[in-house]
């Protein structure tokens, strides 16, 4: 295992790089202070007040003042701003004389995350300005102060996000991406060490070293990776839940267990991939494709149940899908562990799957009767 640099790179280096990358990349949690522009054709104290207030919002940072709609649109197309607010001429005059001037804002949802966060900010600020105006008028009309609130906003919507009240983007993504890369690397490092024995025609010696027990040969081969990847997986859990303080509403032990099961279930899948054709290059291709799809099929980015029919069944073949369900139940929602038993069992049941290819792999190891490329 220490003979080639690839083993060290694909375990220690890549996992470390992944953790360093994502934790430094998402350290903000949510993208704050994204660049937006304003086209203030009114330039009155009212419009300036509005712009000043908007600039204090969490997600928005007014980086440029533009002279025309066209100019603003071009800045948006250049990607320098994600949104702009247009305040037309005589805005303040019309507002005071009850002629209902409109504030228009344009949001670039080509960059959906930036667009929707900024849109929330601007909408909030528009509503707040409107309410301020209403308050003034109603007071002037002599309406009783304690009735004003009920008139301005009869129904308040009170939104609770279950498990991730801050809508932290890092929480949402890293809990899928990190195990996703773990799954990918486990697959690669199952297919590769086994496949190399076949490719280099050393499978007979490999088998001999374990007293001709193929089961022992396989377990012996994969056991070091089980240890290494479980170790890195658990480090990942600790980084997410203890270091970054992402939501963890049940014992971290369950996540450790899920991580361990994810590793061994993925190893079982890896054995199948190298078993289909004991050809290293094909195994690596299958493993790579499957590993990349894993992130999609975990079901976080876009919910599985809203994907085309059949996808749901297909997603059950991905160990990470079950891991993700355990994460949602345990870490995010903190429900009783009995809700997650089914997913733990699903992960365990992957362990029987290598039986499909066991005999084939064993025969191939002895007879070496297959093309090496």
């Amino acid at each position: 295992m220490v003979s080639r640099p690839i083993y060290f790179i694909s375990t220690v280096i890549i996992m470390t790089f992944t953790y360093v990358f994502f934790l430094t990349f998402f350290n903000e949690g949510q993208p704050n202070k994204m660049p937006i522009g304003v086209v203030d054709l009114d330039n009155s104290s009212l419009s300036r007040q509005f712009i000043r207030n908007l600039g204090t919002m969490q997600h928005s940072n007014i980086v440029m003042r533009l002279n025309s709609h066209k100019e603003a649109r071009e800045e948006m197309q250049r990607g320098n701003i994600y949104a702009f607010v247009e305040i037309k001429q005589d805005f303040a005059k019309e507002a005071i004389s009850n002629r209902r001037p409109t504030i228009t804002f344009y949001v670039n949802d080509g960059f959906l995350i930036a667009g929707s966060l900024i849109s929330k900010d601007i909408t909030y600020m528009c509503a707040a300005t409107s309410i301020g105006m209403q308050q003034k008028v109603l007071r002037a009309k002599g309406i009783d102060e304690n009735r004003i609130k009920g008139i301005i906003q009869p129904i308040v919507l009170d939104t609770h996000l279950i498990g991730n009240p801050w809508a932290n983007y890092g929480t949402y993504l890293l809990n899928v991406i990190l195990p996703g890369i773990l799954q990918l690397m486990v697959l690669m490092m199952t297919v590769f060490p086994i496949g190399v024995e076949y490719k280099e025609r050393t499978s007979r010696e490999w088998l001999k070293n374990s007293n001709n027990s193929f089961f022992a040969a396989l377990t012996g081969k994969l056991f070091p990776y089980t240890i290494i990847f479980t170790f890195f997986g658990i480090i990942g859990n600790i980084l997410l839940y203890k270091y970054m303080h992402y939501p963890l509403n049940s014992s971290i032990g369950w996540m450790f267990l899920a991580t361990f099961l994810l590793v061994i279930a993925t190893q079982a899948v890896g054995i199948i991939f190298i078993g289909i054709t004991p050809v290293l290059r094909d195994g690596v291709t299958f493993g790579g494709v499957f590993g990349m799809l894993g992130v999609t099929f975990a079901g976080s980015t876009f919910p599985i149940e809203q994907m085309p029919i059949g996808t749901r069944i297909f997603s059950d073949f991905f160990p990470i899908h079950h891991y993700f369900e355990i994460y949602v139940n345990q870490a995010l929602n903190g429900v009783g562990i009995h809700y997650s038993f089914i997913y733990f069992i699903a992960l365990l049941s992957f362990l029987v799957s290598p039986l499909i290819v066991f005999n084939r792999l064993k025969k191939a190891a002895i007879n070496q009767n297959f093309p090496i490329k």
Partner: protein
Amino acid sequence: MNILQKIPLLKNTIAIVNDILKVIKSELRTMFKDRGVVIMLVLAPLAYPLLYCSLYKNETLIDVSVAAVDCSRSQESRELLRHLDATQSIHITSTYSTLAEAKQAYNEKKVHGVVYIPANFSKKLNSGEQTTVSIYADISSFMYYRIINQACNNCVMDMSNQIQVERLNANGITGELATIISNPIPYEGIILYNESTGFASFLMPAVLILIIFQTLFLGIGIIAGTSRGENRFHVLVNSSVHRGGTFMVVIGKSFCYFVMYAAWSFFILMIIPRVFNLPHIGIPFDIMMLMVPFLLASVFFSMTVSVFLPHRETGMVIFMFMSLILLFLSGVSWPQSNINGFWRAFAWIFPSTCGTQGYIKINTLGADLSHISFEYISLWIQTVVYFATSCWAYSWQIKKSRNKSDVAFEIPESL
């Protein structure tokens, strides 16, 4: 005299072209003989876009199941729930009398959100007070939260506005004045470039560029790794192929990849978006102009790195995970403005970053080449730099192969 001078020049040119053609021929042969390469360079660019586009075909969520807890049981609360149910986004699948029961249903993943209407809802509405509606939303996927919040927000706002006018009337403010007061400064948010706020329209363009980049990169890695792993001297360039210099080898090989991926780019960036209704407002000519430096930079970048891969599988094992890293580095999901300086500089090394940004700006935002001068110039700089590095890397390999074959020939003589 003049003609005599020109003849050797002509001869030289013909010789060079011949050499390049020879490299191209042998490269094409290796490309199509090797199953792994065919999978990576032909099957993957064909299948991946189709697969991902069909998975994300539903741009947005439809009829997300939500539970209602109606403690008010009044005409008003039923009306609000009816409105919610009527939206495209959410579907009220069950009604419970306590929050605990709804929580149970949520835990069993029967619903993805809960709408809670308190007992005093209608009483407060009728007495002119402010009342509250609570929603609890699943955030295991941001899509759930966004869609539930949006639908509830819209319905509550509608109802609110209606009540507002009624209350103003009750206070003696009627007619046009009531309309003005209920909405003194109307605002209008206009969504550009992705009007339906679709998930696929947002993510797929970036994924398409990454599919081009990664399959090209991994494919070239397989080819280079194979020639190193399989020929006798473990060097990249078989000495029988090249007689001309490094230039011929690099130009010949890159020509093959470039032509092949020019065709793929047409399929992936022009046809796929039209078939799957992804944004495509860019001018085809501008996209083409962008793809030239992008493909060249990607080819030379891949060729440079591929020199250091000892075996054909190495590239796949080590660089597959980079697809995800590159997706984030491209600055599409996490906005580029919020990537810290170090990772931004790191991202710039990879042609995929400028390629993605440039493509999205042209194709999704309708920019033209002058708007994306940064990306465009960057890609040409990368092309030049990576061409130089790939020539250097290849000449190093070729030198190594010559030394090795010299040694190999000397040994038998001395024996």
